[in-house]
């Protein structure tokens, strides 16, 4: 049962690049993806910044191999999933039981929005083909079919922790010997639905966000997709390339405090982080870097910060919120940050928390502000917390 699960491949598309090498170079050069909205058609353009993937739907269609009429979310998912699969060098091993576990919070909402413009006026109007991907599962299904993955296809949606739960579920399918290789992560395109939704909650920053800053004003949304190819030990040894790392711990813990707010003491984040540590058999001092959830909202950063303090005091690992680069990519965020975690271990690197000017006074630690090398980096903790109290943490470990 306690079989090891390895990360054998990584793929990403986000506001800071359309593949792993481009994203790595943006991280190294502190180049943010947060900018004026350029691709999404919305009245908030020019007013609310976001970290969009810097490609039009036409360009994404070329890159993904899907027709231009496909939901942007399907195309983003395809680009990152394909990169992760190819990156592992797994090819087509005969008899391999493969799965695709993808997370998304919005499915094909980008097209549903267009349908609704006509539909609201008259229920007999609106192009039905704009609803093909409305169901989240249909986004996953389309990509699975194109990748040729048949044995197990599933979709998870637990708000902003969605893809952490997809990675956990994928790892468990391998541990239970149900599958040999699982492509796991998540995808979310920027939509008017989520932009307006978060705007009504008054938690969007009208400037580039400043996670973990005393004067933080809120979050910027982003879009993208991130996947890791998880494999069993048997598959890992058959591959030519060494795996990036193993998945040594994970925990899904519910804050059960409020539908949208986190508890002030960070009970949910604390439960998720300590549960993941317990599973990995590691001590807090073994964690070298925390990829924070760090959305930039008052509530998240103080709740997460309180939980980090409770668990790690007095010795704090290096930490940062990479949402200062990618924006908050919602259902994709833990997939994207899993890729960052795997790359941190492979390269011995720690990412900066951009635009941090005044550290939070209530916290005794300060996130990293510059890109740095840490050759001995062994264990990375990645946090993802969402609406509904859904808190999940993952631990990635050097082999």
């Amino acid at each position, binding site marked *: 049962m306690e079989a090891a699960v390895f990360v054998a491949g990584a793929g990403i598309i986000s506001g800071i690049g359309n593949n792993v090498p481009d994203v790595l170079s943006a991280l190294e050069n502190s180049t943010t993806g947060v900018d004026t909205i350029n691709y999404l058609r919305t*009245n*908030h353009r020019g007013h609310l910044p976001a970290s969009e993937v810097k490609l039009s739907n036409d360009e994404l269609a070329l890159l993904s191999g899907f027709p231009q009429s496909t939901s942007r979310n399907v195309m983003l998912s395809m680009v990152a999933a394909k990169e992760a699969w190819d990156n592992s060098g797994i090819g087509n091993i005969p008899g391999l039981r493969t799965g695709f576990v993808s997370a*998304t*919070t919005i*499915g094909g909402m980008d097209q*549903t*929005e267009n349908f*609704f413009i006509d*539909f*609201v006026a008259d*229920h*007999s109007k609106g192009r*039905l083909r704009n*609803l093909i991907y409305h*169901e*989240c*599962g249909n986004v*996953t*299904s389309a990509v699975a*079919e194109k990748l040729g*993955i*048949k*044995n*197990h*296809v*599933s*979709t*998870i*949606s*637990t*708000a902003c922790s969605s893809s952490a*739960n997809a990675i956990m*579920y994928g790892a*468990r*399918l391998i541990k*239970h010997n*149900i599958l040999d290789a699982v492509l796991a992560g998540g995808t979310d395109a920027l939509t*008017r*639905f989520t932009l*307006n*939704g978060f*705007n*009504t*909650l008054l938690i969007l920053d009208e400037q580039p966000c400043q996670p973990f800053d005393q004067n933080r004003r809120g979050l910027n949304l982003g879009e993208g997709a991130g996947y890791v190819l998880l494999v069993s030990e048997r598959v890992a040894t058959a591959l030519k390339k060494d795996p990036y790392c193993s998945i040594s711990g994970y925990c*899904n*813990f*519910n*804050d*059960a*405090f*409020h*539908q949208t707010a986190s508890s002030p003491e960070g*009970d*949910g984040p604390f*439960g998720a982080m300590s549960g993941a540590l317990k599973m990995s058999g590691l001590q807090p001092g073994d964690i070298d870097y925390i990829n924070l959830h760090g959305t930039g909202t008052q509530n998240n950063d103080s709740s997460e910060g309180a939980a980090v303090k409770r668990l790690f005091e007095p010795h704090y690992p290096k930490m940062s919120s990479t949402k200062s680069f990618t924006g908050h990519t919602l259902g994709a965020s833990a997939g994207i940050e899993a890729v960052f975690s795997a790359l941190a271990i492979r390269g011995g690197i720690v990412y900066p928390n951009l635009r941090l000017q005044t550290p939070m006074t209530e916290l005794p630690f300060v996130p990293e502000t510059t890109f740095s090398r840490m050759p001995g980096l062994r264990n990375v903790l990645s946090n993802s917390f*969402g*609406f*509904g*109290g*859904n808190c999940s943490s993952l631990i990635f470990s050097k082999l």
Partner: protein
Amino acid sequence: MQVYIRSAASISPQNTFNSPSFLGELVEYNGTRLNCIEPDYNEAIDPKLIRRMSRIIKMSIASALACLKGALVDNPAAIVTGTAYGCLEDTGTFLTNMVEFDEEPLSPVAFVQSTHNTIGAQIALLLKCNGYNNTFVNGGISFENALIDAAMLLSEGTPNILVGGMDEITDMSYAILTRTGLYRRGPVSNLTLFEPGLKGTIGGEGASFFLLADSHSKDDLACIDAVSTFHKPGNIVEITEQVRSFLSAKAVSSEDIDLVVLGDNGDLKNDKVYAELRKTVFNGIPSISYKNLCGEYPVSTAFALWMSANIIKSNNIPASLNHRGNVKEKIRRVLIYNHYQNIHHSLILLSSC
């Protein structure tokens, strides 16, 4: 590893919730929309909370709480739900407001409640349940994914899990699905759904919950022996092969199965798959089709599981169900097979505990 169904509750278009009889008399609908028979929520949920809840949230919470009560469990160790559409009413409300008010600031309530994990989260919040909490949104096998997750959790040491499958029909989704041609063009009685070979089905909805446990108790309804899914099979041969290999992996032969519960929905093309399997791999096994009771919807197998578990527990197929074939004296093993629009297929094998 055995999965024990300690209790089950279902809110459906039939009298299934807090009903003294098990599908004694079927409710007839003349039309293509079967809405759930809703209970008086004031008995189950704090009236202050009810006000803000949409119909699917209310139905699900009432069903979940009744299920826990039936199992004498105050707080489960984990909550896993499956829903293809999530909270459609709130999604539709927010989308409509966004169009009508041209992206001016709106009320956040509908947005907050539109997320697919709202129901699992609301149950956790109500129970103060800190345990594992997950939501699958995977079309026609959303509920089966939840069952697979739960079975793994049980064998990882989680003692009991609340598992639910829910989907709603709203005026908007009904209008849209009618336009896509999913439903019959004219009115039809659900009681005669299977009679002629016509195009289209009837729409349904429901919220069914189960308390699954890792150990046996005398009140268990049934055991879940295996759950499996497959994606977009190429043809009927591939489907037959999947069913055969599912059964052989469990060392179960056709003769060992006392009843198959099938997902026929009255649509000629959809039902061809079931007709073919009745002639081959299910040949000679008594069968029931269940969608005349609950309508077609992506997590209808949650209703089928509720029904099948009760058939095993009571060792009785209600006369209202019109089963085909001769049923053995003791119903020990039931297989549920369903496909949703030939995309996702699923198999659930149950046995008496």
